[in-house]
């Protein structure tokens, strides 16, 4: 089966100011054809403003938006030919499901026969063919979301923009629709740009994630890249959980050695001087008697909780402070108890040097 080609989108130095407030600061971004990119950030980070500038609802104060190299910065939204799924779906309440999906075709003055065939195909795509004559108010949240998707895809848009598409759903349904959305992206082969504040959703759906904080694009990369090699403290903390160890670093053959008080911690990176290491809780193990690792720290369990898949344990160490550890329950050598002395160990690869956030 031939997959229709998607389109490529670029942002070049795009900013948006509201009076003195800078919502988006000098953002540059390339989204390749057929990719699934997620704009991820906490609320107020500017991710929705970027999406609205791509869609054409908000005009950039500076910079350009390009589609396949063509400048579309000044084009009004209705002439961009982008499909969009709005937060809360924004279905037309006075139209049936089929009429909602037919809307983009009607405003494009498509002939009746072709229109009906396309609407049927779009409803089939999201498995809602049986609900064509219902009103949006008669559908569940998940079904409404699928109508919004069908409506946004029915006219073969150049891009599909998704504004927090899953945020209104409960957790279980959200996971289901995440899988569906991912499968849909594969099937239609178009470029998807998604906005969310949910890091799990971003990790599981995206080919690429762009992380935003206070209007700035902090880091762009594949989910694995961002998780394994976060550039800043914010990225390491927002995408998953992390321990941070601060100290004086110097380079050695395998990376850096960070000194803090009397302790030495080996990590990846090439910074010297004042440095910050990020250490993922699931990469730390409790070492059995006699075992050794690149890095070892002794301490006592200060708190723990059982999560089903594992234990979340906080270990108080005299030299490195509190360290959060995630232990898979089935591999935990000990049953945690408060005050229990433990020896923690982690490899050099587990600790990554990250930059402090700009003030």
């Amino acid at each position, binding site marked *: 089966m031939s997959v229709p080609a998607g389109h490529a989108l670029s942002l070049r130095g795009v900013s948006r100011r509201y009076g003195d407030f800078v919502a988006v600061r000098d953002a540059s971004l390339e989204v390749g054809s057929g990719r699934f990119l997620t704009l991820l950030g906490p609320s107020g980070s500017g991710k929705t403003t970027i999406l609205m500038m791509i869609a054409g609802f908000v005009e950039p104060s500076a910079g350009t938006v390009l589609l396949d190299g063509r400048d579309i910065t000044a084009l009004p939204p*209705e002439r961009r030919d982008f499909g*969009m799924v709005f937060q809360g779906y924004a279905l037309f309440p006075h139209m049936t499901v089929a009429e909602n999906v037919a809307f*983009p075709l009607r*405003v494009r003055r498509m002939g009746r026969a072709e229109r009906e065939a396309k609407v049927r195909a779009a409803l089939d795509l999201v498995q809602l063919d049986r609900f064509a004559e219902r009103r949006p108010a008669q559908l569940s949240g998940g079904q409404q979301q699928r109508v919004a998707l069908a409506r946004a895809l029915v*006219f073969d848009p150049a891009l599909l923009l998704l504004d927090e598409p899953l945020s209104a759903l409960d957790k279980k349904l959200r996971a289901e629709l995440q899988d569906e959305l991912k499968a849909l992206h594969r099937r239609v082969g178009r470029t998807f740009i998604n906005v969310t504040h949910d890091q799990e959703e971003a990790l599981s759906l995206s080919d690429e994630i762009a992380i935003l904080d206070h209007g700035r694009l902090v880091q762009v990369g594949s989910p694995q890249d961002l998780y394994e090699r976060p550039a800043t403290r914010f990225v390491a903390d927002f995408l998953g959980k992390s321990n941070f160890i601060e100290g004086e670093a110097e380079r050695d053959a395998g990376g850096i050695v960070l000194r803090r008080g009397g302790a030495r911690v080996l990590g990846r990176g090439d910074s010297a001087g004042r440095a910050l290491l990020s250490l993922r809780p699931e990469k730390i193990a409790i070492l059995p008697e006699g075992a050794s690792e690149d890095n070892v720290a002794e301490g006592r369990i200060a708190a723990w909780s059982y999560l089903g898949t594992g234990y979340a344990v906080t270990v108080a160490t005299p030299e490195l402070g509190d360290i959060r550890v995630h232990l898979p329950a089935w591999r935990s050598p000990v049953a945690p108890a408060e005050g229990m002395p433990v020896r923690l160990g982690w490899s050099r690869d587990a600790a990554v040097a990250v930059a402090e956030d700009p003030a």
Partner: protein
Amino acid sequence: MTPRGRHAAGWWALILPAFLLMTAFYVAPIAQVLAISFTEPQPGFGNYERLLTSEGVQRVIGTTLRIGLITTALALLLGYALAYRIALSGPRTQRWWLLAVLVPLWISVLVRAFAWVTLLRRQGLVNQGLMAAGAIEEPLALVWNELGIVIGMVHYMVPYAVLPMLSAMREIDPRVMAAARGLGAGRVGAFLRVFLPLSMPGVIAAAVLVFIFSLGFYITPAILGGGKTLMAAEWIKLQILDLIRWGLGAMMATVLVVAILATLAVFSRVVNLRRIFGA
């Protein structure tokens, strides 16, 4: 009696005084007056026969319906534009707009009618201004005719048209309009296909309200019509007070009441009137 039934009976007892008061001083007198249409000058349906035979009666009904419909159409058009403008402005601007719409409601209808007379008569501001500007040679007949009545009535009815339409427009989710644009509809297309249909309940409510009010207008047509164009209310006054034909006047009053109740009955099937009128 079950405890629950006794409870309900208690509530009924609470509104009983109000109910009796309304019946004794409002419903009963009206019914009595309307009954005159069947008893004067002699018992029977003689007065109602005039609906079919008398050209004068038919003309009054025709004029009333025509002016009512024209007023409704113009008030809806102006009111819709106003409500749309208000609905799309920010909360601060909205308050000022609303004030501007509501202020005329606090000015006596009599004062307003005479104000229109001074503006529209032959030596009035409008005619003199147009003549001074060289737009016309002779003063236009703007008042003491149907045109004058319509101008005065539309002016009176616009706020009543704005309020129900504005409340319907405020319920429209702005994201739905953005969705229409994002899916390829231009400004006009988005308005015609999405905003207009979604504001329709308000338009229907405003139409019912304005039309019903228009049928019973008395002061405005009496002053701005100059006695030449008769609408139902003024005609009733003429029959009862000047010609002492109580039966005929009461017949027209009954027809008015029935027409209003019929309009309400028809539209209560189409839209939820209780919600529209804020009950």
